[in-house]
């Protein structure tokens, strides 16, 4: 089975290369070679131990066809923000011009749709910007590069406005064999600021396998708020790698909200390549039904004087399976590193589970690191206290869950995203209060 998956992918790759409408041949070939070295994760793979991705990969994967405007016939506008903003709507990994509004000249952003670039242009873009560092040798990063054909490139400069950029990734494909690779590249030039919100959404009938890869290059002194909202209702698998490369004095706040998804995996990697970087990793996951939601994070402190702070919280309901793995690497010359990590979970039923694991590897000696993980039920004393004041049990529970989640929501700086998430999460938790 495992061997044959590699073979299946090899055949697919060769076919894809022949069609020659993707990434430059050499780039893709090198990536595929690296992929073959690790191979598709199997049941023995440590990194995918609780996320049996090999059992959910299509037997005969099909790469998406080129379509004119996939959204031409769709009536769909899940806008998160009514104000002026850049909205990029992708349906099954294809930009829908009809639903997008990207040409705001005053925004002063450079936005390129990879699919519309010639092979030479794409090669130049990759050579100029891409310097992918696959810190944990994740095979899906290599697969994404191997099959790179579609994606979006966003570049900010000091002169560009700070209008938020919203990327909507909507799945409408129903074919279980559909295999979609998508790349988002964001480049923040020196001292620029940006807000990027990535929203993953699907309806019940959606299917297939999605391999998304977001790369962010945060230049010297740049600041970025990166929001990731995952609210999938279909049967598709979402594999999402996010690499964030930070240069000197940059600040990146990352927010990951995983609200639903049959099989959802995030590999969030912060690579602190220069001094004085600051990184915040906030996360909230709600794992309900039979959902499997896996958040793997890595903070790689490569240089001295950086600060990272991670706070992930989860609520596990019904048969939900949650996984949290937090790696912190402090390289030998990354002295005066401050790195903190916390993961707290509330498990609401006997059949819901959470696997949480901090993984600290520290080679420097002058560092401050701490980590903590807790897993428990709702606090009975708190529950009794609220009920003794007249709140019925359901309301009291919802209030406590809301309070638990709100610590993360409250950190959001972009109001439309904050309002949206407050509303959606309260609904999920059964919280209905008027203030």
């Amino acid at each position: 089975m495992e061997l044959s998956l590699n073979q299946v992918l090899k055949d697919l790759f060769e076919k894809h290369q022949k069609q020659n409408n993707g990434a430059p041949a050499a780039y893709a070939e090198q990536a595929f070679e690296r992929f073959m070295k690790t191979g598709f994760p199997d049941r023995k793979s440590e990194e995918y131990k609780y996320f049996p991705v090999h059992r959910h990969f299509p037997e005969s994967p099909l790469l998406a066809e080129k379509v004119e405007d996939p959204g031409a016939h769709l009536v769909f506008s899940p806008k998160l923000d009514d104000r002026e903003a850049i909205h990029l709507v992708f349906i099954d990994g294809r930009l829908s011009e009809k639903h997008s509004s990207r040409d705001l000249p005053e925004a002063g952003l450079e936005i390129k749709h990879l699919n519309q670039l010639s092979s030479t242009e794409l090669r130049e873009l990759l050579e100029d910007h891409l310097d992918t560092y696959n810190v944990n040798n994740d095979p899906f990063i290599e697969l994404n590069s191997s099959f790179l054909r579609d994606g979006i490139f966003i570049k900010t400069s000091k002169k560009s406005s700070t209008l938020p950029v919203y990327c909507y990734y909507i799945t409408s494909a129903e074919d279980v064999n559909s295999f979609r690779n998508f790349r988002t590249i964001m480049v923040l030039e020196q001292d620029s600021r940006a807000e990027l919100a990535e929203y993953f959404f699907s309806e019940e009938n959606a299917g297939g396998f999605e391999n998304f890869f977001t790369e962010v290059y945060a230049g010297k002194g740049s600041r970025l708020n990166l929001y990731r909202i995952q609210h999938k209702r279909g049967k598709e698998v979402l594999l999402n790698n996010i690499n964030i490369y930070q240069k000197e004095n940059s600040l990146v706040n990352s927010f990951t909200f995983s609200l639903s998804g049959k099989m959802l995996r995030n590999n969030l990697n912060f690579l602190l390549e220069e001094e004085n970087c600051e990184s915040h990793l906030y996360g909230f996951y709600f794992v309900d039904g039979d959902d499997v939601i896996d958040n793997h994070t890595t903070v790689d402190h490569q240089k001295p004087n950086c600060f990272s702070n991670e706070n992930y919280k989860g609520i596990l309901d019904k048969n939900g399976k949650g996984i949290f793995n937090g790696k912190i690497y402090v390289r030998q010359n990354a002295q005066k590193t401050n790195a903190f990590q916390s993961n707290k979970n509330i498990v609401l039923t006997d059949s819901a589970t959470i696997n949480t694991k901090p993984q600290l590897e520290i080679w420097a000696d002058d560092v401050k690191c701490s980590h903590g993980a807790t897993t428990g039920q709702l606090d009975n004393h708190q529950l009794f206290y609220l009920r003794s004041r007249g709140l019925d049990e359901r309301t009291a529970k919802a209030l406590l869950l809301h309070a638990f989640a709100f610590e993360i929501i409250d950190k959001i700086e972009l109001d439309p995203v904050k309002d949206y998430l407050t509303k959606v999460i309260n609904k999920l938790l059964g919280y209905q209060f008027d203030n």
Partner: protein
Amino acid sequence: MLIIKNLKASIENNEILNGIDLEVNAGEVHAIMGPNGSGKSTLASVLAGREEFEVTDGTIVFEGKDLMEMEPEERAKEGIFMAFQYPVEIPGVSTTNFLKTALNQIREYRGLQPLDAVSFLTHLREKMKLVEMDQSLLSRALNEGFSGGEKKRNEIFQMAVLEPKLSILDETDSGLDIDALKIVANGVNQLRSKDKAVIVVTHYQRLLNFIIPDFVHVLYQGKIVKSGTRELALELEEKGYDWIKEEYKSTLV
């Protein structure tokens, strides 16, 4: 209003209440005193409906209704309020927010219209004045980082807001300095009326100088071993509990 008969309760098979009989009528203030560990908090918790305690025998009737059949929130809606000896901290939940929900759920139960934001705020302000509660405490998370005294005052404040028929104050005086004690007592006294009752649990008579009880009961080893009037509290203050214990032992032989 409240009739407790032969109440026995245990936790993890340890019997803590050993057959309590107590009758509280509207308009009355009862003090329950007794040494540490005698079961005072247990009695208060059982009345409020804490599920960890198993009631093994006896009955509790509140205004003609069987209390044991009711969930904690139903008891609150019927008009029972307990001020906790150790109020919990609830991060992320503001006092104002949760009290509004609580009050409106109680009002709904009693067939009253919910209070809108403005009337609720007016109601809140009035009660804040009563217990000299600081606005800044209310917008903070419930009891989080409050001092011992602030937590106790918050309990009395909540009582004032929810306007229960029967209030049970579990050691609300402990940890309060004399000024705070007077404020709390004053708050309770202003809420005294002919159709309301109060049970004051304490092991010092100090509070009873400010909240004058109609009856005083001594709880020892899970039983009410002595009942009397205000003078009993003064006697206990003077002589301590040892004579009560001796008297109780002699009844056992």
